[in-house]
């Protein structure tokens, strides 16, 4: 009955890892937060219902092997993701009493794999659906909102990452603030410096080469070395410039991390500004001059609007890069989600590492989505 044309490639290839997920442990139960996990299968957790859940799951995966319309695939994939999260949360709730009060239940390899497969199927369907930019943004917002609601509802409270979150709820939000301040603030400062530099490079051939080499040089310094390098000069400033310490400048902490991020951000900001401005068609530039627009009018009315998509693309690169790099700042005491990651690494506490990693990834993802939408919207008008 099913001929080859009716089989969906991706659905077919993802079916196998999806099935393998059933053979891997569903959950890991640990006597304490740093103990080694004890694997639990779906049937250990839910009894016979485990088999039912497994069968339904397989049936849904099989449905993806058949060519369905993207709308169906999006709906089904979304439902599958939600169901997997709920089942995982429920399973943790059932297993938790066994190891209370110090034990932890975390999703096992099987649960992670199944979630990854479902997520890929859903994302692929979304891409095929080609929603308009604002819809994509709305979808992203809805997913984020859904996850937050789910966490707030308490349904996932027995999952180890959530336990970890509740234990550190207060420091979580202050680290979040620090992280956003680092990533966004350094982006802002990089723009203040980089936009004029990019403008200058676009207008003057002489400055272009040297500027590019300096900035590229900065970019190639490994991040840990860069953060370390900042300690010396800023420590000197803190010790020798009166008042510097009072406004929070010191050799370690926020200031050197901030500075390092600014330096990293300069290259993409400058080169995108320059590229964007130079991409203005010469005929347009000439017409603008011939119509009697003065230099400032040309910049604001013609050059910047035409360069805007490229500028926003640059902003996207920088912000995503900064959000990721800001984690490293925790190494020199700048705070941010990196603090959890490095503490977790130190204590070999996986939950803590995840507590730092997951929000970082989510933040980067949402930022990218937001800026992609902006780029798509301002490209719509012309070309």
């Amino acid at each position: 009955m099913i001929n080859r044309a009716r089989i969906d490639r991706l659905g077919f290839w993802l079916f196998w890892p999806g099935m393998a997920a059933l053979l891997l442990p569903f959950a890991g139960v640990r006597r304490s937060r740093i103990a080694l996990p004890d694997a639990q299968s779906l049937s250990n957790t839910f009894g016979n219902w485990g088999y039912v859940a497994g069968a339904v799951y397989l049936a849904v995966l099989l449905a993806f092997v058949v060519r369905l319309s993207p709308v169906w695939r999006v709906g089904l994939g979304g439902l599958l993701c939600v169901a997997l999260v709920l089942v995982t949360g429920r399973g943790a709730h059932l297993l938790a009493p066994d190891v209370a009060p110090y034990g932890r239940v975390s999703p096992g390899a099987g649960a992670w794999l199944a979630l990854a497969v479902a997520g890929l199927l859903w994302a692929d369907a979304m891409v095929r659906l080609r929603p308009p930019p604002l819809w994509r943004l709305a979808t992203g917002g809805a997913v984020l909102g859904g996850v937050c609601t789910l966490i707030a509802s308490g349904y996932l409270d027995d999952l180890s990452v959530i336990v970890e979150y509740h234990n550190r709820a207060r420091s979580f939000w202050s680290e979040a603030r620090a992280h956003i301040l680092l990533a966004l603030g350094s982006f802002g400062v990089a723009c203040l410096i980089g936009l004029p530099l990019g403008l200058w490079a676009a207008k003057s051939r002489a400055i272009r080469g040297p500027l590019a080499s300096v900035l590229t040089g900065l970019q190639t310094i490994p991040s840990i070395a860069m953060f370390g390098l900042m300690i010396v000069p800023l420590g000197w400033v803190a010790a020798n410039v009166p008042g510097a310490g009072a406004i929070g400048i010191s050799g370690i902490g926020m200031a050197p991390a901030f500075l390092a991020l600014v330096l990293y951000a300069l290259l993409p900001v400058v080169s995108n500004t320059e590229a964007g401005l130079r991409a203005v068609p010469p005929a347009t530039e000439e017409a603008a001059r011939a119509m009697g627009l003065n230099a400032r009018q040309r910049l604001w009315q013609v050059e910047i609007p035409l360069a805007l998509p490229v500028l926003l693309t640059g902003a996207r690169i920088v912000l995503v890069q900064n959000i990721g790099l800001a984690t490293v700042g925790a190494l020199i005491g700048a705070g941010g989600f990196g603090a959890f990651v490095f503490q977790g690494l130190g204590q070999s506490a996986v939950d803590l590492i995840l507590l730092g990693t997951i929000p970082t990834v989510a933040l980067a993802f949402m930022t990218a989505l937001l800026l992609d939408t902006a780029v798509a919207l301002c490209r719509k008008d012309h070309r």
Partner: protein
Amino acid sequence: MIEIKGLSKIYNGERVVDHADMQLETGTITVIVGTSGSGKSTLLRMINRLIDADEGTVLIDGQDTRDMGLDALRRRIGYVIQDHGLFPHWTVARNVATVPKLLGWSAPDIKARVREMLETFQLDPDRYGPRFPHELSGGQAQRVGVARALAARPDMLLMDEPFGALDPVIRAQAQDELRTVQKQFGATVLMVTHDMAEALSLGDKIAVMNAGKIVQIGPPEEIVTRPANPFVRSLIAATDRPFRRLALIGLEDHIVSGTAQGPAIAPDASLADALSQMIWSGRDALPVVDAQTAPDAPAHKIITLRDVLRLGQAQ
């Protein structure tokens, strides 16, 4: 009046415009023709100072352009760029409104003027006004470029191949419109074209450029009948010359009395039109009628083949 005196531009040691001299009388159209790379665009750009001349001066009504404010100078000179150069992020209407906006016209005035200009160049304002340049054909974009240049009623107009992408029908219309608009506000026009026929029909004067030099400048008759050198002669193919010349002469002044049979010709036609009708219908004389006269009234005013042949003769 625009006076161009000894204007030169040197790129990499090469004079791409070489001591150009030219006088553009107020309210006339001067057309520059010449081969590709002969320096036509460069000459044009030196007039509104998009590029600075290396030698020579440009005087507008006796005043050196270097003593004028750059933006003010450019806002009073309409400019049609070779590649239309529309602003891709602005609608057609906003493009046309560029200079009026810079000059601080009121919004209703701008709106009315934009409509008027688009209608003049056969572009329905409701349909094309809100479009972006990438939604136009090449010819439409060129017409918007011309409309934009004329929007603020400039008293001078520089046009670099403004009608290159238009088909012959629209092109003839656009030429007529340009003529009308130019007459209306007495603008001084300097236009570049590759098309000799366009130059002959539009120009009060024609300047021929070759390798940076203006090799001849004069009224169309002079260019056709007394080319200054073999280069100018070569611009008008030998076989075309009699027709080109006849096309420049209206038949009005050469009407004689007599009788002739068959369909009549209008008195505002050219001798070339008359010759063409004679050949096509195999007659050696055509009756000439005004719109008022009945078409088949016995003709007394005629134009004869003998006269056409005499007037077309090389001197």
